[in-house]
């Protein structure tokens, strides 16, 4: 049996208690959608969003400083690295806010602590706290659900609100007959049947096409973001998603255009553009935020890379962005301006950006935002980012 038909049959015959009911266009609702893309490893903001206009930039980054002509120029201070060139289109459509000199609210150069702070949305490492996306789901009202597009449940989504996960499996290796028989078995189990059915349906939505090429399924972020789009664009599907992209811990040989880091940036930009394309009409109320746990040292290290630093860059994308801007209270790159003499100084709190982005996407009140980000009442949301 063809899987698509198989899933339809299962839905019609079964009890759709979990996951997505069949699309019913008579009930289309306008719902915000939000995707949090976490770049794990500490992404080098100075190499991605290049402050070519800062007088100290060239000497500070000697060895791998970009020329203005290499960049997608955003304004007279900043330009996007060559790998990020595909984002030019979003910039021109007023769908891209570039954030710089942003950092988590706690000073650490530990991946573990940094990611914990970013993902829990609190201001210091507390071992057991839940993720801020899960609190967002708890605080929101109405129809909403979350999904992790990741090989493990990211901390940002953990918590009492039940969320789904999706990761590229190699289900191509199992037959539809096998899945059909499993479905018969699962029908006898009221607690699990809805979940199994939902899994089949998710798999059906994601389809095979974007994963063509077998191995490509597990590599790069483009297939993940395309899969995310196929799931998120369903009416009544999940509308909060967390996506992860690792490999940013560039201690050595970052390179320039075409180098190791630039290729990663290229994957990121292409993935974001592919996500936008795949979302089609559903893009109109979708916001994507891209962040990392920390920026990297302002100066290169001895192995033509950079070490763990402090402030860095991030992105907010989507039609709900007020207009394309670089949001930054730029601290400068002079020796005196650097944080502890080595890192870009933080002038903007990640939570201010997140409050602005989710607040604008879902029309949340300041009180709701303070529940999502505890102990952040002193951090003003960057609401000007969004329409």
């Amino acid at each position: 049996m063809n899987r698509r038909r198989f899933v339809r049959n299962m839905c019609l015959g079964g009890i759709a208690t979990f996951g997505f009911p069949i699309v019913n266009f008579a009930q289309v609702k306008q719902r915000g959608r939000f995707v949090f893309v976490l770049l794990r490893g500490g992404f080098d903001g100075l190499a991605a969003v290049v402050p070519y206009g800062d007088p100290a930039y060239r000497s500070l980054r000697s060895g791998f400083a970009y020329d203005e002509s290499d960049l997608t120029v955003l304004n007279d201070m900043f330009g996007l690295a060559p790998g990020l060139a595909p984002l030019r289109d979003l910039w021109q459509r007023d769908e891209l806010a570039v954030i710089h000199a942003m950092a988590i609210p706690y000073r650490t150069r530990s991946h573990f602590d940094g990611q914990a702070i970013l993902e829990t949305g609190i201001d210091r490492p507390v071992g057991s706290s839940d993720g801020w996306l899960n609190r967002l789901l708890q605080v929101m009202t109405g129809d909403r659900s979350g999904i992790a597009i990741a090989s493990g449940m990211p901390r940002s989504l953990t918590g009492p609100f039940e969320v789904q996960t999706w990761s590229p499996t190699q289900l191509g290796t199992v037959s539809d007959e096998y899945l059909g028989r499993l479905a018969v078995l699962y029908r006898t189990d009221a607690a699990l049947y809805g979940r199994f059915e939902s899994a089949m349906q998710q798999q059906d939505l994601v389809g095979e096409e974007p994963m063509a090429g077998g191995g490509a399924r597990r590599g790069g972020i483009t297939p993940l973001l395309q899969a995310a789009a196929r799931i998120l664009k369903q009416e009544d599907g999940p509308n909060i998603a967390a996506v992860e992209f690792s490999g940013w811990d560039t201690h050595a040989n970052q390179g320039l255009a075409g180098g190791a880091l630039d290729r990663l940036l290229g994957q990121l930009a292409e993935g974001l553009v592919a996500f936008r394309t795949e979302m089609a009409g559903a893009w109109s109320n979708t916001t994507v935020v891209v962040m990392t746990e920390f920026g990297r040292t302002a100066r290169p290290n001895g192995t033509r890379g950079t070490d763990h630093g402090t402030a860095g860059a991030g992105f907010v994308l989507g039609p709900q962005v007020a207009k394309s801007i670089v949001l930054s209270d730029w601290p400068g790159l002079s020796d005196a301006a650097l944080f502890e003499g080595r890192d870009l100084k933080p002038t903007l709190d990640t939570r201010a950006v997140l409050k602005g982005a989710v607040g604008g996407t879902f029309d949340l009140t300041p009180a709701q935002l303070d529940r999502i980000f505890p102990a952040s009442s002193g951090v003003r949301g960057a609401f000007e980012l969004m329409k």
Partner: protein
Amino acid sequence: MNATIRALNRFGLGAHVGERRRIDDPKGWLRAQLQGGAPELRAPLEATPAAIAAAIRDFRAAGQGDQQARQQARRRLVDIAAAESHAALTARATTERPFVERLVAFWSNHLCVSVGAKVLVAPLAGSYEREAIRPHVLGRFEDMLLASAKHPAMLVYLDNFQSIGPASRGAQFSGVRGQQRRGLNENYARELLELHTLGVDGGYTQQDVLQLARILTGWTVTGLARSGPMQNARPRARRRPVQVRQDANGTIGFAFQELLHEPGSKTVLGTKYGEDGVEEGERAIRAFARHPSTARFVATKLVTHFVADDPPAQAVDRVTRTFRDTDGDLRAVATVLVDLQDAWDERLRKFRTPQDWLIAVLRAFNAEASENVMPLLRQLRHPLWSPQSPKGFGDKVQEWADPDSLLNRAELARTVARRLRAQRIDPRTLLDVVDVPASDPLNKFLADNSIAADERIALALAGPAFQWR
């Protein structure tokens, strides 16, 4: 409900084919496993104390070297973790006292460390389970707690090894030589109260956490060589140089460094601890182990693990009483779990975590844990000793039975079954390891010769009956 299958799967780690017929008295079979000490697990050859210490010191020394040297040194740490994981998983897959191994896994997760958090934890996590947890699972909770508190894995994982009393002598000359000034780290103190003993609502305050952190200053790790926060530190003006004892060749272990210990008396949970060096912390930890909130917190967690995601109140009460009345005698506590009526109620089911599921697959076929098991556990999002937070892994259905995970199991079951093809197993024998009524379609599928035998095996392993314990 079949009580033998429940004993094998709920309290044990999954039935072997044929095993149910060898057990006449399920509760007696479980109680018998609790007799005698916990089974020892010897260190793998790659993970002797000397090997661990050497690998860690080399890793720290390689910090200065080139990237290749660093990667090689890191590789050794990861290899130790892999050897330890393999040993621990083999014990779970092959043990004849599966109830005791389940207790090891439970307590190891309750007082968890995580190899994902800090690379230095990786080579220590296995020895942590072997040395701090395993010997005490049929002993006293307070001894386990104290062994955990003093194990280098925990001291590193929750940062206590670098916590310095603000008024300690050590604090006066930290910060020299341009090092970042270090001070009190309350991470372990907080988790000790919140996650290991009283529980988040157990009745302690931020002041208690701070005071406890002060009590625990000086609890640090020796043998890390390039580690000690005080290494090479020299006091300011006119004091004699103070050398922190550093054992550059010995094994890695607990050390109490008076120099880093916050002087003076401290008060935690209303008890005053006069200045008494390491004994302050030892007394405090034993007191937390006997705190009434701890009995309830731990009992709730145990009943959640062994009975139901929503633990029945009367069961929690009973285990709480036993824990309290025996001052945390974990053999008595394990015994009372077997006696709980709710544990045998067929309406109350526990969903197998990925580790439970994979071990049960291995046990069904009397297979050993191969080196493939760790990657499979990663794919199932449940690698050994790698929780995302000090809270440990959860064990409720909502944490593990998401649609994607069910598909993952379906896929893996198919792969495992294909690998077993050579063994020519009759798929019907798998009805031995699950509890399904005669009307269940699994009976029909397993007997259906028109379906390939390996697919039938996969259906048994991926079907709903095998997902519960």
